[in-house]
C-alpha cells in the first residue's frame, strides 16, 4: 500500500486539520463517565458482571435511538492483538488503561471514529467524542446526544444529590472531562509558558504536557482540561474552559508575533534547520521528531516555510508512534529499527507534499 493510501484509511477525522483556531488547537475532546445501576464498578467486577455490561451496551447500540446517530462496531479487547490495541491508543480512541484491561474491556467505535464508547475501563461506560480544532460545544453536543440515546435503554446509576455516580469521586456529578490539545511553541520559546500554566491551574483547570514527563513537554503540546465535575453544569464547565483557552490562544499569537519581530533570524534558522533535519535525517527518535515537527509547523503558521501542508504536525505525530509504524511496515520493530523507519516515513511524507506542489 502506498503512503497516501495508508493515510486515507488509517487517519481518523480528528487527525486531519480543520475547525476553528486549528493553527493552535489540534483537537477538542469531551468524555462523559456513566455507570449502570445495580452492577459493581469494574474494580470489583467478576467475569459475569463484565459480560452483563458488554451485552447491555451491545443491545443498546442496536436500538433505533442509537443507530439513528450512526453505526457502531463493538470490539472486545480480548479479540484484538496487543499491536491493534496499541494503535487504538495512539489514535486516542481508547485509553492506555483500557488497552491493558484485556479481559473485561471492550470498545464501540463509530465508523467515522469521531465517537467511541469505552466499556469496562474505570467506569462501565465512557462516551468520548473527539473533533479537530476548537469545537468543545460540538463535541459535548455529540456526546450528549449519544448519552441520551443510550439512556433510553440503559439505566444509569444516578443520585439526586451527587449526580452521575462514578468509580472515582473525582469524576462524580457530571462525569464530564473536556479537554483541548494546544500547540504553544510561541509561549515556550518566549519563556512565558510556566507563568501561563500556573495561572491556568489556579482557575481550576489542569494542564499537562502531552508526551513529556512531568512538566517538560515534547513538541510544545499541552492538554488543558477541567478538573471539577461536581457543582457546575456541563455548559458552565465547557464555557469556563473555552474562555481560558481563548485567552491562551491570544497570548500564543502575541508571543509568535513578538518572536517574529524581535528575533526573526534566529526563528527562521531554527525552523528551517528542523525542516532540513526532518527532510534528510536517517534516524529519528520520537522525542526529536515531535520537537522538529513543532518547529516546522510553527514555520508554516508564520509563513516561513511554504509548500508543506499544515496538517503535517498532527498527521506525523500520530503516524510516527511505535504501533503505527509497525502497522505501516507490517512487522515488529525494535526501538532502534523504529528510529530508522520513522526517519524514512517522514522523508516519504515530505516528498508527498513536494509532488503535490509541483
Amino acid at each position: 500500500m502506498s503512503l497516501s493510501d495508508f493515510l486515507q484509511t488509517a487517519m481518523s477525522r480528528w487527525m486531519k486539520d480543520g475547525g476553528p483556531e486549528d493553527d493552535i488547537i489540534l483537537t477538542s475532546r469531551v468524555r462523559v463517565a456513566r455507570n449502570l445501576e445495580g452492577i459493581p464498578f469494574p474494580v470489583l467486577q467478576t467475569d459475569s458482571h463484565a459480560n452483563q455490561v458488554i451485552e447491555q451496551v451491545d443491545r443498546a447500540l442496536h436500538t433505533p435511538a442509537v443507530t439513528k446517530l450512526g453505526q457502531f462496531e463493538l470490539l472486545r479487547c480480548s479479540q484484538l492483538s496487543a499491536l491493534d490495541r496499541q494503535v487504538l491508543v495512539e489514535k486516542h480512541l481508547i485509553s492506555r488503561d483500557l488497552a491493558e484491561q484485556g479481559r473485561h474491556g471492550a470498545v464501540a467505535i463509530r465508523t467515522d471514529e469521531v465517537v467511541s464508547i469505552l466499556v469496562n475501563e474505570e467506569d462501565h461506560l465512557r462516551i468520548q467524542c473527539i473533533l479537530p480544532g476548537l469545537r468543545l460545544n460540538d463535541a459535548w453536543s455529540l456526546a450528549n446526544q449519544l448519552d441520551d440515546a443510550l439512556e433510553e435503554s440503559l439505566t444509569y446509576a444516578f443520585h439526586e444529590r451527587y449526580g452521575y455516580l462514578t468509580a472515582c469521586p473525582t469524576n462524580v456529578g457530571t462525569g464530564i472531562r473536556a479537554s483541548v490539545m494546544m500547540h504553544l511553541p510561541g509561549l515556550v520559546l518566549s519563556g512565558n509558558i510556566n507563568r501561563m500554566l500556573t495561572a491556568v491551574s489556579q482557575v481550576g483547570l489542569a494542564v499537562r504536557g502531552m508526551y513529556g514527563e512531568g512538566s517538560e513537554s515534547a513538541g510544545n503540546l499541552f492538554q488543558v482540561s477541567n478538573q471539577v465535575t461536581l457543582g457546575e453544569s456541563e455548559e458552565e464547565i465547557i464555557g469556563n474552559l473555552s474562555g481560558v483557552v481563548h485567552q491562551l490562544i491570544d497570548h500564543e499569537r502575541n508571543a509568535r508575533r513578538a518572536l517574529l519581530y524581535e528575533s526573526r533570524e534566529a526563528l527562521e534558522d531554527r525552523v528551517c534547520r528542523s525542516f532540513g533535519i526532518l527532510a534528510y535525517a536517517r534516524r529519528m527518535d520520537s522525542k526529536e521528531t515531535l520537537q522538529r515537527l513543532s518547529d516546522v509547523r510553527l514555520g508554516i503558521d508564520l509563513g516561513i516555510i511554504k509548500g508543506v501542508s499544515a496538517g503535517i504536525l498532527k498527521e506525523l505525530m500520530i503516524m510516527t508512534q511505535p504501533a503505527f509504524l509497525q502497522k505501516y511496515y507490517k512487522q515488529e520493530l525494535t526501538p532502534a529499527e523504529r528510529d530508522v523507519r520513522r526517519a524514512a516515513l517522514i522523508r516519504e511524507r515530505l516528498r508527498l507534499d513536494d509532488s503535490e506542489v509541483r
Partner: protein
Amino acid sequence: MLCQRCQQRPATVHFTKIVNGDKSEYHLCESCAKEKGDLFSKAAQAFHFNQLLSGLLNMESSPGFNAPPATANRCSRCGMTYSQFTKVGRFGCPHCYESFAPRLEPLLRRIQSSTSHTGKVPLRSGETVKVKKNLERLRRELQECISTERFERAAQLRDQIRELEQRLGE
C-alpha cells in the same frame, strides 16, 4: 557483566525493583534498558497519581481535620471497606456513595467545587429527580413569598406544588 536480557552487550544500567515486597534486580545494557523504558515511566506515573489521591483520602488522620461521624466501615451492597477505598481510590459500586456518605462530604469539598450536582439529569430515570428538585425550588420560593407577604404569587406556587406532589405520588 553481560546484559541479562540480550546477553550480548555489557550491562551498564543497574536497578532494583520492589513490588509489594518482592525484590528483583536488573542488570541491562543501555539499549535494552531504553526498550524497557516506556514501561517504567508509565508505572511511575500511575504510582504518582495513586499516591496523590490516597494522600487526599487519608486526610482524615491529619491534624486539624474534624473526624466525621462514625459510619459503616463496609458497603452493604458490594462489601468494599473504607480503608480499601482509600488505597485504591475507587468505589466498588454505586451504593458506596450512600454507605460512606458522611465521610464523603468533606472529601468532595476538597476535590470538587461543591457537594451537589447541578448539571444534566438522565431523561428517563431522572424524571422523578427533576420533579423533586423543582419541588424543592418551589417550596423555597413559597416561603419567601409568604415572608414578604406576596400572597397572590404564593397561592399560584401552592397550586403548582400540589400538582407536582400528586405526580410524584402516582
